[in-house]
């Protein structure tokens, strides 16, 4: 197809979730940059300030969803980029499992970090 360069097989579940997470991430990534670079200067960040923000459940939930959706979007994007490069067969299966494990570990570690910032652990 000439005018449409998508990395994904259109209409598939991974294609759909990549778009749905994109819509959420567009807003929340812009919010994250605004809050932590413009409203609060990055150089002034302290644990107390982070804890105050993460102590609000709405902010905590938004940041945790940010972690999960960004991880999915990133890992799914990498998987598709590698498929575009032509990986197939056992190589593709190995890449898939490495990325799934990496993604799960990142979400697990990110959750621990979020709980530490919230003061729960």
């Amino acid at each position, binding site marked *: 197809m000439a*005018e449409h360069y998508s*990395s994904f097989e259109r209409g598939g579940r991974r294609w759909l979730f990549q778009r749905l997470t*994109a819509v959420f991430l567009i807003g929340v990534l812009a919010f994250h940059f605004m809050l932590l670079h413009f409203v609060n200067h*990055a150089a002034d*960040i302290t*644990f107390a300030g982070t804890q105050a923000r993460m102590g609000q459940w709405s902010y905590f939930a938004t940041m945790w969803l940010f972690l999960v959706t960004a991880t999915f979007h*990133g890992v799914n994007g990498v998987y598709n980029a590698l498929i575009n490069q032509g990986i197939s067969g056992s190589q593709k299966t190995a890449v898939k499992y490495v990325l799934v494990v990496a993604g799960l570990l990142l979400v697990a570690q990110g959750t621990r970090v979020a709980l530490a910032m919230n003061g729960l652990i």
Partner: protein
Amino acid sequence: MSQSYNRGTVEDFGRWREFSAGMWAWIFHKFTGWVLVGYLFTHIAVLSTSLGGAELYTNTLQGLEALLVVRFLEVGLLAVAVFHILNGIRLLMVDLGVGLEAQDKSFYASLVLTGAIVVASIPTFLGGPLA
């Protein structure tokens, strides 16, 4: 039915001089995506200092922010994130079939707007005390 053109595959990067705007958009989106996913893992690693206590977290973040090279890297990260967001909106529009005839112009608009936002943000990113 729209007319189709055979421009070859974008993976064949040796032909870069022949690439059209849409192909460059695809490459830039891929590149910025790789940077962002790499940064995501790095970001969680740095924030993991919160597990070692308040002092370690605050000192690590403020220590990093005191380095000029980190400030410049953050400007680079902003450029990458803004382009990925703007081109991502463009891709969603393309997927919805909105403005297909202007997809090349919207790519150039993404680039120009990214440049403008990044330049306007430089004073904020480089301001504040350094080591």
